[in-house]
């Protein structure tokens, strides 16, 4: 358990964190009209009477947005319920109707959970659908609205479909909060619900933070930190806010429930609005839309089309590696970086699981790693196993493999990491085939999986015989040539 020890009193405090994650749904068009949902267009070009809220215009719900929200909900183990849209009334210049259409007391997805890589289950209270607002730019006066010379409003984003995922206050450390967002990001990407790009604002996080003395079971007063747009900010803001609250409580003061903003440069949170301006959103059912009652067959179809989620993919890789405990971190990283498929294939092609995962964890955090040929990775790993390459050499070869797409043998040769010429290698291969007739028969007649394993076996034997000088990929090719010849 992560706790905070007070410097002044020595008292132990515990974090209680709940996150509200807003993410843009990856639809072609906006939530209530046919305007394109795209990032980076010229200001006010993707607008129409509906998303501008012009008098007389009416919203029409985007079916695809509902489908994506339901996909996400099911991936988060939520129940999909008949839902109702409501109006959230407040005035803001970049909000065309001066109310936001959102789901309030009857959201689409309720009561699910998300399992983090370390096995922790975080409760999901709800994941509801709502529209985004526009974007204001305040020109002059340091970008603050009240000091600005004038303000520009871009309504391209107004009406973009969002889903807001509200966790239960189950998170207990800044790192866990970050892990939750990473995991959620993985689920969003896997389901295709969102491109989840924090840097483009398509994924934004509000953190509800409170603290309590270790051992206490009731919750303290929380503050909401708005619009955290990077994992780093999220972690820092939570940590700062918790310490601020502890200082207040230890000096006998109260924590005031309020909205706070994170000041990245100052490294602190600031009060957003005063208590007397507390908002009353005057929610009521949106009369321009009818209740959303998804057909059970639709939900069933979504369940059937559900892809493997990060947790499933971790389990699958762990199974192949054999026991998750030792390699848990590497497996989590492989899945997070989307390299689990590569790792699985490389292992299937005979690559030593431990070494494959080591490379995934330490050497493949680069662009293009996912394009690496699994057989080449297996061959590289085999060269290491056979002692043909040192770990350092393997790293260098791997970097070049990603960059050039060449096979490891060729790279090792070019770099003078000694290798053999093909004619010499052919002799060795033929000798080994002759020495292992049973394995060879199986290699020739077996299925893909079996052949993968036996490729590893023969490559290994060749490496052994050549003291690691052979090029695994060439050996693999030779084996395939021989197999084709004997069929």
């Amino acid at each position, binding site marked *: 358990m992560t706790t905070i020890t007070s410097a002044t009193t020595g008292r132990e405090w515990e974090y209680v964190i709940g996150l509200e994650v807003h993410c843009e749904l990856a639809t072609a068009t906006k939530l209530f009209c046919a305007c394109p949902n795209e990032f980076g267009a010229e200001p006010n070009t993707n607008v129409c*009477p509906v998303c*501008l*809220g*012009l*008098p*007389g*215009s*009416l*919203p*029409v*719900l985007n079916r695809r947005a509902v489908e994506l929200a339901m996909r996400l909900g099911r991936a988060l183990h939520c129940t999909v319920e008949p839902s109702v849209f409501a*109006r959230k*009334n407040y*005035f803001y*210049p970049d909000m*065309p*109707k*001066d*109310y936001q259409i959102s789901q309030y007391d009857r959201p689409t997805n309720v009561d699910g959970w998300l399992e983090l890589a370390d096995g922790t289950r975080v409760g999901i209270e709800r994941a509801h659908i709502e529209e985004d607002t526009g974007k204001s730019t305040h020109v002059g006066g340091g970008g603050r*609205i*009240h000091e600005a010379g004038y303000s520009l*409003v871009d309504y391209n984003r107004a009406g973009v479909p969002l889903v807001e995922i509200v966790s239960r206050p189950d998170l207990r450390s800044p790192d866990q909060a970050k892990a939750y967002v990473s995991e959620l990001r993985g689920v969003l990407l896997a389901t295709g619900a969102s491109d989840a790009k924090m840097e483009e604002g398509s994924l934004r996080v509000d953190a509800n933070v409170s603290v309590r003395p270790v051992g206490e079971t009731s919750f303290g007063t929380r503050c909401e930190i708005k619009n955290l747009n990077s994992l780093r900010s999220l972690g820092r803001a939570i940590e700062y806010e918790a310490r601020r609250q502890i200082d207040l409580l230890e000096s006998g003061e109260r924590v005031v429930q309020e909205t706070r903003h994170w000041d990245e440069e100052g490294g602190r949170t600031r009060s957003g609005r005063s208590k007397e301006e507390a908002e*009353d959103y*005057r*929610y*009521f059912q949106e*009369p*321009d*839309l*009818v209740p959303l009652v998804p057909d059970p067959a639709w939900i069933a179809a979504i369940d059937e089309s559900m892809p493997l989620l990060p947790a499933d993919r971790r389990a699958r890789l762990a199974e192949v590696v054999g026991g998750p405990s030792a390699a848990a971190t590497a497996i989590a990283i492989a899945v997070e970086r989307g390299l689990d498929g590569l790792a699985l294939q490389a292992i299937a092609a005979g690559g030593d699981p431990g070494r494959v995962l080591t490379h995934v964890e330490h050497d493949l955090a680069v662009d293009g790693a996912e394009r690496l040929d699994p057989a080449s990775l297996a061959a590289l790993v085999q060269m290491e196993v056979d002692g043909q390459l040192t770990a350092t050499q393997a790293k260098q070869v791997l970097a070049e493999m990603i960059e050039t797409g060449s096979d490891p043998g060729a790279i090792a040769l070019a770099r003078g990491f000694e290798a053999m010429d093909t004619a010499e290698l052919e002799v060795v291969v033929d000798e080994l085939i002759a020495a292992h007739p049973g394995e060879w028969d199986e290699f020739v007649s077996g299925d893909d999986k079996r052949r993968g394993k036996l490729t590893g076996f023969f490559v290994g034997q060749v490496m052994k015989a050549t003291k690691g000088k052979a090029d695994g990929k060439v050996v693999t090719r030779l084996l395939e040539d021989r197999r084709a010849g004997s069929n």
Partner: protein
Amino acid sequence: MSAQELAAAIRAGERSARDVLDEHLATIEAREPQIHAFNLVLADEARAAAEAIDRRVAAGEDPGPLAGVPVALKDNLCTRGTPTTCSSRILEGWCPPYDATVVERLRAAGAVIVGKTNLDEFAMGSSTENSAFGPTRNPHDETRVPGGSSGGSAAAVAAGFVPVALGSDTGGSIRQPAALCGVVGVKPTYGLVSRYGLVAFASSLDQIGPLTTTVADAALVLEVIAGHDPRDSTSIPEPVPALSAVLDHGVEGLRIGVVSELLGQGVAADVVARVHAAADALARAGATVEPVSVPAVTYGLSAYYLIAPAEASSNLARYDGVRYGPRVDAATTGEMMTATRTRGFGAEVKRRIMLGTYALSAGYYDAYYGKALRVRTLIGRDFAAAYEHHDLLLSPTSPTTAFPLGDKTADPLSMYLSDVCTIPSNLAGHPAVSVPFGTGADGLPVGVQLLAPALHEATLLRAAAVLELAREEAS
């Protein structure tokens, strides 16, 4: 001439649309200064449209069922490139970039749009005195109101400016002015006519409908503007009902209940007398007519004056000076919005925004808005019970005939009572019609109201046609 007759003559090439239009424009020119039915007369555009109709007729094409019929639109219906003001200062200078669905359908049916009619600001009122551009006067007596909020549309039809006008009805805003001006007014089933392009007052109650001189014209116009619209999620995905074809089917065998609760206190004796006369006429035509009790309708007014302002407070939030209309500059955004809305909205609109904001606020939601929603459910239930034994219900439209200008402006509550008979059908989403049925002691028109279950417009208009015929035979 009725719209039906005009369209028939124009389609047959017996009359030109241009001539028909010019006659109506001449009538407008002669009397509009006294009546002030219009916020805007579109003479040039109308002439171009009429000439286009004539060219199509000459070319042997059929320009549609409303070919060449001059039509006026309540000025809360969006017209592409033409000012749409809702009779409010806050929309001054705003031209919608699109036509309302009903406007598209009217144009497609050959109608010629003549102008935009005056209304109570944002359709809030029962006398058209709440217009920022001055009141409309009743063509039957210019010292009196035409009713509201579609007073401009009702007066335009009553004065012979146009044979057809569209209005909107949130709590009686088509039927009450129709009654006071002696014309036919229909509020269709909620969802039968698309609201796309109708500037919202109270979205769950608003419905667009026709004001005409005859029941047959109302049926014809309703056939043109009704039907599913994918741009309005509350639009009913049903085929357009056949109305004109069944109008002469009579009321033989229909069971009609006269709503006891709507003949009580506050309804003038001469109005009650006309309702009884209508009941007799329907009975003579073969209907079974008897009193019926619909207890919850007595709560309609209270529920309406919580629900409608609540929705209005939200619908009218967008008029904040940021995107369109006049802006009053101030130091901060909040102050700018407050100053803009203070100057832009009239007293009645402000009153309802405040009522609605209060009704929806956190501490009072359950006591007011929540309770009003429950009353609304109750009204639906009581109507359903009444319709188990009755095909139609009969009541007054307005408790009184047209009242003098200024008579009720100082007392909002007395003004609100004008809609006591019409509000229940808005809360239930049911159709209703007001048919002129003689005059009161003061010689001014009296309308009687027929109510029907949802989507029973055909039965409703059949009975209205019987009353229309009985009235003609009596006179």
